[in-house]
């Protein structure tokens, strides 16, 4: 029963953690501009993140090594420090965006200044991070994020052209710059490194061992696939509601409008509640990931379950993220724009994060019989190539297409 519970927990955590504020708007924009033609990027990205998440969980369970342990040991001092600095900056920027996203979602529901709701969100997140155990955090934000399933139901309810949607699942490379920008952006969003940092460190926090390898595989496959279903649903709903109307979305409000236009007030409330919890969960993921990375690299005691006395510097880093993130986002900077700037940093962080993981998962000295087999190894190196291409292409396309506007 405990294992079934662990899988269920992973599923809801993935729903909450996979769809962050940038992805909510980005996928809606992609569907509203290109319809089903961008859908194929979702399964391609989801399969990749499943491959790497499964490896990260396996390395945590068998090798007892989290992502930044691997970075520290796998690289020299200069490259390791570069990876740390860039990943901290990326986590911090993403955290700012997620905190801003919580404020925007609550503002759309209750109509007061977003800064007020960002402060409220900050207090709620800090209180939850302080009081709840690790599993409790996953459960709170994961179950709350289930409201986003309204998009999956809406995608079905809107009677899309399933044949056209199926055609959209076949990879197609158009020469249009904005199209490539959105495809590459959707792939980059699937590989955002904080998911792997959080997942591998979370596996160690939860004390995973060889007995948990099945649960790890189920978590990675079912959880991230459900996250992918939500991403695809956003594209389909945008293609059905916004594309025919000629709407090019630019804000979180437009993503919510698509749910409202399908299911009325109930759809709107479910969508915005789901957004607030899912984005709040992503804020916790990014904030904790930053603290995990720094603590693992510096060999400090780390972990939420150790409490402030057991891991004081880890908790201090979390607190710094919270306060610093609020100070930045309260200036009024647009959270959606912040996620675009994060893409530039991810160009450096993506390959540097995934390479040591891939090497460790294939290392027989560390992993014994649980090292990568031929399938995991082939998929891993294939996807590493995809990640390198995405990492180079994303910032180039961001600049060349002026953020996809052409």
């Amino acid at each position, binding site marked *: 029963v405990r294992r079934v519970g662990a899988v269920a927990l992973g599923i809801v955590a993935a729903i909450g953690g996979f769809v962050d504020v940038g992805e909510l708007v980005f996928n809606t924009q992609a569907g509203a501009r290109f319809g089903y033609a961008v859908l194929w990027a979702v399964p391609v990205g989801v399969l990749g993140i499943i491959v790497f998440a499964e490896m990260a969980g396996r390395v945590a369970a068998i090798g007892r090594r989290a992502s930044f342990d691997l970075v520290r040991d796998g690289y020299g001092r200069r490259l390791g420090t570069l990876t740390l600095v860039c990943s901290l900056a990326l986590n911090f920027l993403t955290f700012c965006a997620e905190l801003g996203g919580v404020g925007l979602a609550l*503002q*759309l*529901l*209750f*109509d007061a200044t977003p800064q007020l709701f960002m402060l409220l969100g900050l207090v709620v997140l800090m209180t939850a991070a302080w009081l709840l155990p690790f599993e409790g955090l996953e459960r709170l934000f994961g179950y709350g994020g289930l409201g986003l399933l309204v998009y999956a139901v809406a995608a079905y309810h809107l009677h899309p052209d399933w044949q056209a949607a199926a055609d959209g699942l076949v990879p197609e490379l158009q020469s249009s710059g904005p199209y490539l920008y959105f495809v590459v952006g959707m792939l980059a969003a699937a590989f955002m490194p904080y998911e792997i940092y959080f997942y591998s460190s979370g596996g160690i926090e939860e004390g995973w061992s060889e007995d948990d390898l099945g649960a790890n595989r189920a978590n990675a496959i079912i959880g991230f696939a459900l996250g992918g279903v939500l991403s695809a649903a956003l594209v389909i709903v945008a293609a059905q*509601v*916004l594309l025919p*109307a*000629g*709407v*090019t*979305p*630019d*804000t979180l*409000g*437009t993503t*919510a*409008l698509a749910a*409202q*236009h399908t299911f*009325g*007030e109930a759809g*709107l*409330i479910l969508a*915005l509640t789901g957004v607030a919890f899912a984005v709040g969960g992503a804020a916790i993921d990014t904030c904790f990931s930053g603290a995990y990375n720094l603590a693992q690299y510096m060999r400090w005691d780390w972990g939420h379950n150790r409490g402030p006395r057991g891991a004081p510097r880890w908790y201090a880093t979390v607190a710094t993220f919270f306060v610093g993130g609020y100070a930045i986002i309260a200036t009024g900077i647009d959270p959606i724009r912040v996620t675009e700037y994060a893409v530039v940093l991810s160009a450096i962080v993506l390959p540097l994060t995934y390479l040591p993981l891939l090497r460790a998962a294939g290392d027989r000295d560390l992993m014994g019989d649980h090292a990568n087999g031929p399938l995991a190894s082939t998929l891993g190196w294939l996807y590493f190539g995809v990640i390198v291409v995405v990492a180079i292409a994303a910032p180039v396309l961001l600049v060349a297409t002026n953020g996809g*506007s*052409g």
Partner: protein
Amino acid sequence: VRHAPWVAALLVAAGCGGTIDAHDLRQRVETLGSLAAEGRLLGDDVAADRSLSTFVRVHARELAAAADHQAEQLADATAPTQLADVRSSALVLARRIARDLGDLQVTPDAMTGRRVAAALGRRSREARRLQARP
């Protein structure tokens, strides 16, 4: 006077004035069309009593601010002779879209929703026509 060229360059870089070209103008009209179309969807939902007034107010305000921003940029820009007409029409369109959305923000009831949805539907078509102009 010595710093005037730098100040002018900074103002242009900040989007305050400068010459607008055909591509930029087309993109602005496209944005206006999108804002009008989105406002129409929102108005339809308000007319059918399928929304929360808090959401309508916040989102209509957001869309109106975006239309106002486009109006400001169009008002500050100078257009070459062959585009002057389109720029003026786009400016008028931007102001009307902002006004309609402002009405929805202030009075998010069914009657206003119906009126605004119809008006913004027309503005959306007008934007398409402007986009198609050579």
